[in-house]
């Protein structure tokens, strides 16, 4: 069946070409691919890296970027104890129930609260950021071509613009950002945060850690998915082999006649 082979090849080629060309059109730059622990069929998140990444988010990114789909209770999923998550939550204030006179109140955040966003609304965000709105980071690792590799490459992609490059007012040169002009100034510098116990807080290390953390924020069920995937694939493989054998047996008397 030559024809089937031809169709299969064409199909595979189109998928490759299709995705490849979209990538090329949007990126035009080589991303720095990292060997993430969550890659591959058995990939899992690195709890220590995520906790460091959360620290980077909290001390650097959170000044401008929200993380609104993450609740403080979710922090227990990256290895914080309940007490630690509660303590982190208590550092934030959120709107409380109206008091007895109907006036608004504030209270310390608890485990069931979601991460407060840094700006009250888009106008406030724009006013503080030269007209640009810093995007919420909850899903950013899935909302950009290249995912965590893109985030890492972007965070480590700040460099001096080429001599003939005209940089817009208030914009910064980034090798990875589409168009190379990004409103966000370089966010990370060596030793910007102090890791309690762990590697040195180099730009490279912090970029890796926060990208790791943001991948978890975007895809918190990845580990459950990989685990179930293995069970499903293993089960279906055995079942399919059995179904193949049954099919062969059922057809044996028909095929013999030929």
């Amino acid at each position, binding site marked *: 069946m030559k024809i089937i082979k031809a169709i299969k090849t064409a199909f595979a080629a189109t998928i490759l070409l299709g995705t490849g060309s*979209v990538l090329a059109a949007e990126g035009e730059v080589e991303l720095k691919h990292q060997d993430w622990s969550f890659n591959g069929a058995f990939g899992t998140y690195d709890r220590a890296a995520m906790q460091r990444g959360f620290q980077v988010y909290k001390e650097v990114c959170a000044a401008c970027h929200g993380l609104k789909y993450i609740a403080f209770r979710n922090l227990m999923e990256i290895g914080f104890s309940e007490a630690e998550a509660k303590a982190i939550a208590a550092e934030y204030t959120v709107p409380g129930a109206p008091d007895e006179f109907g006036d608004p109140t504030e209270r310390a955040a608890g485990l069931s609260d979601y991460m407060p966003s840094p700006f009250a609304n888009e106008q406030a965000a724009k006013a503080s950021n030269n007209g640009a709105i810093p995007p919420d980071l909850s899903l950013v690792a899935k909302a950009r071509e290249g995912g965590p590799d893109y985030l890492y490459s972007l965070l480590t992609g700040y460099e001096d613009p080429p001599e003939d490059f005209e940089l817009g007012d208030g914009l910064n040169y980034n090798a990875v950002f589409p168009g190379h002009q990004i409103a966000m100034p370089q966010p990370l510098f060596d030793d910007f945060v102090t890791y309690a116990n762990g590697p040195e807080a180099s730009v490279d290390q912090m970029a890796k850690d926060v990208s790791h953390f943001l991948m978890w924020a975007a895809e918190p069920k990845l580990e459950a998915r990989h685990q179930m995937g293995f069970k499903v694939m293993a089960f279906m493989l055995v079942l399919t082999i059995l179904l*193949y054998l049954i099919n062969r047996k059922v057809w044996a008397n028909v095929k013999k006649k030929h």
Partner: protein
Amino acid sequence: MATSTFEPKNRLVRWVDQQLPIFSLLHGSLGPGYPAPKNLNYFWNFGSLAGLCLVVQLVTGIVLAMHYQPSTAEAFGSTEHIMRDVNYGWLMRYVHANGGSMFFIVVFIHIFRGLYYGSYKAPREMLWMLGVVILLLMMATAFMGYVLPWGQMSFWGATVITNLFSAIPLVGEDIVTLLWGGFAVDNPTLNRFFSLHYLLPFVIVGVVILHVWALHIPGSNNPLGIDVKSPQDTVPFHPYYTAKDLFGIGVFILIFAFFVFYAPNMLGHPDNYIPANPLVTPPHIVPEWYFLPFYAILRAFVTDIGPITAKLQGVIAMFASILVLFILPWLDGSKVRAATFRPVYRFLFVILVVDCFVLGWVGANTPDRVLIDLGDSTFDMLHLGQIGTAWYFLHFLVLVPVISRREKTKPLPESIANPVIRPDAHAVPAE
């Protein structure tokens, strides 16, 4: 045509069957009572696979609808709620999202199987046309389903596609307003799309029942494309094709599961993880992969011809690319069904498959992407798309009608049970 009559041993089954012959129906349609050609190859598995896909989409879709909020303020957030907080919500959503892609892969292969083996020809024209109706319903359902998560591609895809209807003269603008439920893609649009996205799958179920009914009148076509002549040519559907279909389902689920568990977002677009924003247009608005060839046809028309705008031409061509399938049984005049015995048609078939892939590739790219730089002019994606579109219609409207009536076909085998070509057999001349 039944090879065996249904005589239940169980008294309860017999009692039910006397008053409502549902067991007889199953016996005669999927059981030992349905004789199927014994030479069906694995391309005949895709009908049952399509049925499986439909059931998977219905089951996961109904569960998702229990947690989803069809309002512009909450749609995106409720989708994330499903992904993060609902028990196995991520599984339901990834199965449903990838299930749509799997459904289209299966149905496209099913359609091209029909094109190759001449399954659309007499006496199966009605069966084929019902299939085209299912394809149209699937496309409408998939399009509206993609809008529901209310991401950037949802919103802008909906805007682009609904705007197409404005190209229709006189009533176009009114139709668009009706589709939107207002003057822009907004909450009423999302609400009606959700309502219709829930309704249409059940309409599909109805047409599938008609499709299967129409199948059982002449019975399945087969890889030789010749009629069943004697009981020696057939085997009972059960156990032979139930066993074969189950094996096919096993292989299919393995592929499906690979996407769901290891590449759940590969067939989607990253921009749909950005909440819909009417003020920010994504750099490239692209539909889901299964619409890309049609998108390329839509964009292949760039010159207004008098009152017929380029946009209207594109819209007509896009719909015509599917509607042409309705009349294919009459465009193709060959008495021989299977392409195996039609060398020229077989060649054209291969080109058509390549053409559809080329159109898909063009649809994924911006029209102004340069493919060949000729110095003073360039050969762009647009031009490739125009060639691909021209070839698509040339194939169905000119080449197939002409060649099918002139082509010298190869001699057909004697029967399915005895697939030899008699030495004195003559090639069948076209009529």
